[in-house]
């Protein structure tokens, strides 16, 4: 056999078809949450759940359309999105940094670790008035509330990731003459990346949950406010439009993070 074996074009196509199918399956899977709407529709139509309180998706579609046509919904979405984005960044950046620092330095971990563990379970709802006292009743206090929630998720997930870094990678950096900061940047950060993304996804979901609660306070806009105000006045259809919208916002944020994860953590399974 003097000529090396090569694959024919058909074989190459067959080889690639697998990953193309994978991609298709993934795309289809993004729509699986629609099953939930279907289930809800069925439960509501068959009277399994009380339609006065849980109107079928088809019946809230009208309200949704109205709110969309009047562009009202977009103001709420925009307000919520802005708050979530600012709070998310404010919480995630220090969370990741402190997770990396405490993960790499045992002495700092010894001192600060228990302090964070003690601060974490402080009930947010109880300190809310105190946050209002410091940051005012405007958006700043909402950013802070979200940032606090995001911070701890990022902190613990990053820390957990750093603590799992195989010693050999740290040794490699050290042997390559890496400074503390370089070890941080080029070893700890990428190595903890899968855990950081777990944290980012959890934090994304949590942000929307928190903002939904935080917009009950001192806000006149936002999807959370809309849900709460609708519930207070028993405008059930409007409330459910809000719930679906905020859940969808959270869902798309998580999808976006998963796409980023595939891009930035190409060495991991997905």
């Amino acid at each position, binding site marked *: 056999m003097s000529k090396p074996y090569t694959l024919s074009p058909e074989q190459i196509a067959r080889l690639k078809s697998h990953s193309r199918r994978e991609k298709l399956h993934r795309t289809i899977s993004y729509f699986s949450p629609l099953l939930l709407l279907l289930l809800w529709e069925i439960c509501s139509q068959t009277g399994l759940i009380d339609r006065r309180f849980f109107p079928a998706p088809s019946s809230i579609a009208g309200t949704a359309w109205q709110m969309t046509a009047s562009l009202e919904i977009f103001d709420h979405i925009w307000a919520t999105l802005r708050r979530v984005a600012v709070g998310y960044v404010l919480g995630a950046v220090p969370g990741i940094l402190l997770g990396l620092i405490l993960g790499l330095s045992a002495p700092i971990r010894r001192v600060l670790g228990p302090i964070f563990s003690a601060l974490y379970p402080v009930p947010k709802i109880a300190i809310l008035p105190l946050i209002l006292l410091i940051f005012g009743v405007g958006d700043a206090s909402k950013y802070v509330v979200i940032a606090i929630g995001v911070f701890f998720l990022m902190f613990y997930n990053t820390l957990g990731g750093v603590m799992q870094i195989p010693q050999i990678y740290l040794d490699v950096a050290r042997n390559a003459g890496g400074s503390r900061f370089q070890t941080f940047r080029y070893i700890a950060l990428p190595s903890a990346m899968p855990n950081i993304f777990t944290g980012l996804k959890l934090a994304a979901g949590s942000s929307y949950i928190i903002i939904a609660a935080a917009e009950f306070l001192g806000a006149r806009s936002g999807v959370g406010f809309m849900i709460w105000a609708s519930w207070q*006045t028993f405008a059930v259809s409007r409330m459910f439009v809000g719930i679906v919208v905020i859940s969808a916002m959270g869902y798309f944020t998580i999808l976006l993070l998963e796409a980023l994860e595939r891009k930035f953590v190409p060495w991991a399974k997905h």
Partner: protein
Amino acid sequence: QAEDKPQIEFLYSPFADYAPFFIAKDLGYFDEFGLDVSLAPKSGTAETIQMLASGNSLAGAATWGAGLFNSIHQGATVTIVATLARMPDTVPSPSPFMVSEKAWQDGIRKVEDLKGKRVGIPGPGGFGLYSVAKALEKGGLTLDDVEAIYLPPPATAAAFANGGLEAGWSIEPFALQLEKEGLGRRLVEDHTFGTELGFLAFNNEFAQENEDVVVRFIAAFLKGARLLDNGGWNDEKILDIVAQYTGTPKDTLKGISYTIRSEDGSIDLDSVREQEEFFRAQGSLEYEGPIDIDTVYRTDLLEKANALLAKQ
């Protein structure tokens, strides 16, 4: 014998307005009338109505507001049988409209001065909103003349302290504490004289099929209410009970004005109609025309309860 007693889970909120139920429970009035009642705390009108209408709970008390009107319109199958509480026609009011100390120092001394200022309201669609609108009316203002900010009382304290609010709704015992700490002052107190606050309601089916039980329940409630409204507030034993259910220390409860109710437990429908109109004007109601209160409000049961109580 105790097993035969009808069991009722009653939904309440941990506020002093619900005190007659606490008394009826702890002083054994419910037992006296042959009922086995358990009290379950609930956060708001919407939940309570929903629980009652769906039949998941049999009885509860809640407050008037857009939520209640809308839910009745949507076919919430509840039977309203008696008042929960109403505002007294005297000052000091249990729910004064307050101005922050800061604003006071800055020269805001009258309602008129609040034009364009930030005013705290506990939430849309409820008594708080109505009450603030009434207070503003005293100075010729409407809700549109101020910047309404939704904040519950604890957050109001913070907002008064850091200048986040110039004025706002409040309620006892919080109002007194605000004064004590030098955070706020009473600005208007006579704006909601006689306003109906809430009602006692049952699940429809249950009320139809167990009129007797409902009557006995109301009677026990009325007995508690009368005890309370006729000087009961000064009784140590009663204060102990209220303190326990509301989580408010007894010393705080003492000497504070509270909501009252009509002797016979009847609802002042005019006040209810006025609130409905107010919320319609606010655009909070999802229907046209006045709601048919009479279809859900049954006075016959209340009459029987009064008779039963009189017989006792």
